């Protein structure tokens, strides 16, 4: 457990993240009205969504499939489970209870590996229904404080959620951000959710505490209203310092829920509710237990696509670049790794392909893999310089493909054979004996003059790296 860079002294940060994810089903968790974002208020409603007297829940099979997929992708044990009622009053909670999972959740004991190798435990990933939305009117900034009324839209009520609870294995704001990003990438890869924080289909709450090594864990505060990956980092950093300041000034951290305000960059207490958290959990009598068969579980696990971590490893092995390098992570994130591998499979050079793809394509490369393969071979074979290859690449991109060799020829890029190159080098040495003498004496800058002469004589076709190589060889 390394100290967090930026926290004073030997203070350490302990963070657990609770992430709520809306599942990408057609209908709600317990009823058949649409699960859709952005529709006119209160148009996706039915007796169950409204909590009408007499309405009863029936479990959406697809939601279970997707929830199991999330558990499998996070290396969880998928187990028989039950649903409980979590009882509390709030206007966007139509039944005045939420159907959730309590002591027997669907997925337990998993983990998520960050790109930097840190393993974050996943305690559980359980199913529950979402609440509706409240808009506060009449107050300042849409906050509930000072509002004159609230307007309730129940479109979102009943949408299927998976709540993913990490263990407190995160010890830096960077890792917290990395966790959220990686989780998002996994969710997209498995098709479980569109995980858009800006639309609320992925919501992050952070549990933050601080302590010094060898001492018990500190009191934690829960931070809510963190609406972007950037906010995750900022909120955690702020909260850690707030707690440290409190403790160092002799005060104590009180366990509470705090609200992150992105505008002023601080967390604030929510007014504490009296008798706040006696949810009086009991088994939901209107539902029956969920016990996915071994066959179903096996099917879900087998159908998992390759996940981002494995993709990064695979691409790293193919290209010789580190798995957490910018090139590998970006290309995998953009879903371009299959393409790079296709280029390699077609005989091309994976390392060069990686570079080309990262630089030239924002998303799906619109150049046939075989064409790109040809270009990589020209470059690694020495027929083209890096600069020349870039120019050919630009043309391939512009034309949606083409024959790299033909394009190079059309541009006048020729293969410069080593004999000719050596000739230019010898001429340059002869033309500037002073530079040669200085270079031989160890003056690296003198090489530049010689390389320049070679470039001039070859009209730019010489490969600077090869020229340097030859000069060094001749120096002895």
């Amino acid at each position, binding site marked *: 457990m390394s100290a967090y860079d930026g926290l004073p002294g030997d203070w350490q940060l302990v963070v657990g993240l609770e992430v709520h994810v809306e599942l990408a089903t057609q209908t709600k968790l317990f009823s058949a009205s649409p699960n859709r974002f952005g529709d006119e208020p209160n148009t996706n409603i039915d007796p169950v969504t409204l909590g009408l007297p*007499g309405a*009863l*829940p029936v479990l959406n099979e697809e939601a279970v499939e997707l929830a199991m997929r999330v558990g499998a992708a996070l290396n969880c044990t998928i187990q028989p489970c039950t649903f409980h*009622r979590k009882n509390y009053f709030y206007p966007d909670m139509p039944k005045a209870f939420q159907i959730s999972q309590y002591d027997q959740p669907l997925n337990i004991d998993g983990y998520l590996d960050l790109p930097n190798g840190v393993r974050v435990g996943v305690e559980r990933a359980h199913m529950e229904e979402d609440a509706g939305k409240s808009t506060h009117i009449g107050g300042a900034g849409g906050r509930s404080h000072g509002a004159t009324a609230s307007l309730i839209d129940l479109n979102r009520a009943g949408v299927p959620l998976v709540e993913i609870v990490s263990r407190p294995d995160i010890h830096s704001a960077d890792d917290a951000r990395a966790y959220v990003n990686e989780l998002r990438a996994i969710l997209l890869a498995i098709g479980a959710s569109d995980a858009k924080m800006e639309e609320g289909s992925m919501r992050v709450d952070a549990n933050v505490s601080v302590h010094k090594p060898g001492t018990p864990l500190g009191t934690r505060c829960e931070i809510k209203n963190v609406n972007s990956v950037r906010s995750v980092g900022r909120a955690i950093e702020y909260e850690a310092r707030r707690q440290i300041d409190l403790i160092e000034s002799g005060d104590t951290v009180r366990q509470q829920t705090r609200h992150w305000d992105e505008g002023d960059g601080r967390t604030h207490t929510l007014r504490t509710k009296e008798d706040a958290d006696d949810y009086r959990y009991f088994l939901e009598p209107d*539902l029956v237990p969920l016990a996915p068969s071994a066959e179903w579980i096996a099917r879900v696990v087998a159908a998992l696509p390759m996940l981002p971590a494995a993709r990064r490893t695979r691409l790293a092995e193919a290209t010789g670049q580190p798995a957490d390098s910018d090139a590998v992570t970006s290309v995998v994130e953009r879903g371009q790794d299959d393409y790079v591998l296709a280029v390699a499979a077609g005989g091309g050079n994976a390392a060069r392909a990686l570079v080309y793809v990262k630089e030239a394509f924002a998303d799906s490369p619109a150049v046939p893999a075989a064409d790109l393969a040809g270009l990589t071979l020209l470059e690694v074979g020495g027929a083209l310089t890096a600069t020349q290859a870039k120019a050919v690449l630009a043309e391939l991109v512009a034309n949606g493909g083409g024959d790299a060799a033909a394009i190079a020829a059309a541009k006048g890029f020729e293969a410069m054979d080593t004999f000719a190159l050596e000739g230019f080098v010898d001429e340059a040495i002869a033309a500037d004996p002073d530079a040669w003498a200085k270079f031989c004496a160890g003056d690296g800058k003198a090489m530049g003059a010689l390389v320049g002469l070679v470039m001039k004589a070859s009209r730019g076709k010489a490969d600077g790296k090869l020229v340097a190589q030859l000069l060094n060889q001749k120096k002895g």
Partner: protein
Amino acid sequence: MSADSNDPGTPTASAVAAAVRAGTTTAALVVEQHLAAIAARESEIHAFNLVLAEQARDHAAQIDAAVAAGNDPGPLAGVTIALKDNMCTRGVPTTCSSKILDGWKPPYNATVVDVLRDAGAIIVGKTNLDEFAMGSSTENSAFGPTRNPHDTSRVPGGSSGGSAAAVAAGFAQVALGSDTGGSIRQPAALCGVVGVKPTYGYVSRYGLIAFASSLDQIGPFTSSVEDAALMLDVIGGHDPMDSTSIPQPHPSLTEAIQHGVEGLRVGRITDLPEGADPDVQERLEAAFDALRAAGATIVDVQVPAFTFGLTAYYLIAPAEASSNLARYDGVRYGMRVEAADTNAMYGATRAAGFGDEVKRRIMLGTYALSAGYYDAYYGKALKVRRLIHDDFERAYQHADVLLTPTSPTVAFKFGDKGDNPFAMYLCDTYTIPTNLAGHPAMSVPFGTGAEGLPVGVQILAGTLQEPVMFRAAAALEREANK
């Protein structure tokens, strides 16, 4: 026209339906007969929160038109039915006899309502009940009590008092009620009609306004066992809208009652809690004799945990109710008392909208579930429930059905239970355990007791043993009518 099952003039529902379908009578005529009965005595009895005269006439006209056109209007064509006012009827006020839902019109039908309409049954009204089905006398209705047609100074029982009275007074051919701890069987006994609580999951609960979700079941009130069998054959069955609905189809009860009780083992529970009045005990003994005479064998069984049913029930049912009734918060439907903030609005709305018994049970249930008390109350009650269930299962290894009193007394006078809620709870001593076990049970009228008031005898059976339960009921009915 009274629907006394001892009166051979009372036609059965199947006879009515057959006549309507054959054209030998019209649905319109049947409806008018019942509306006339209502007009004659409803002001005295107050079985209904709402009489649906125009809708009934309209529906009757549709049925008759279908018959005239040669179309099949369904197995219950022209059968008039009264529905307990805790079953959602689209566009028609459904109040649970509570101020908090006064005037609320559901935007959907309960499944049983759709099933009945499709079968050609004609809804004549929504009947009175103890508020939110909590009570044993219908005195807890926010709209005034219902009176027992046999003696209007006495209660009809509860919570489905209105439905029981409606059948007893001939206001409708049949009625539906709901039974959570005896709310069909006990009023059936007090009103001298047949009342059935089927196996939990037999009839869909979708659209039944919930009291206690793991205990509630819908069932029929009728003037004959045959009608009850027909009703359950129609309304029973799987509903995909109810997750607790039993998936497999049910055998015909109409067919089952053709068979007698030779060799049937009828259990007498020797450790049954005491408390039944002597007149009720006498009728129970006569019932044992009657079944013996019909060929059954009487065996002694024990159900040791039976006596703990009241305790388990009055922790489990209020706990579930406290959660089920939390939705009555003034936000989306029903009564609202405006206030400065939502918590104040909830508190004022629910205080004004709920009656005393409902509040009492919400409090008890909230307490039983609350942090620090769950294990001692709700958690413990769930274990007692297991004991009761298992004791019954053991008894059913030695007996096919069990026989007990339904109610400890005949119909009692209004106000008889005074200010003591627990005195009222004792009315359900014999009915509660079957709800906890999830088993079926029914009350069959079997003569009269004190003051000539009806006495019912309760037949209990194991899970999905309705056929054998109905066989015993039919035999008892035959003996009672001799």
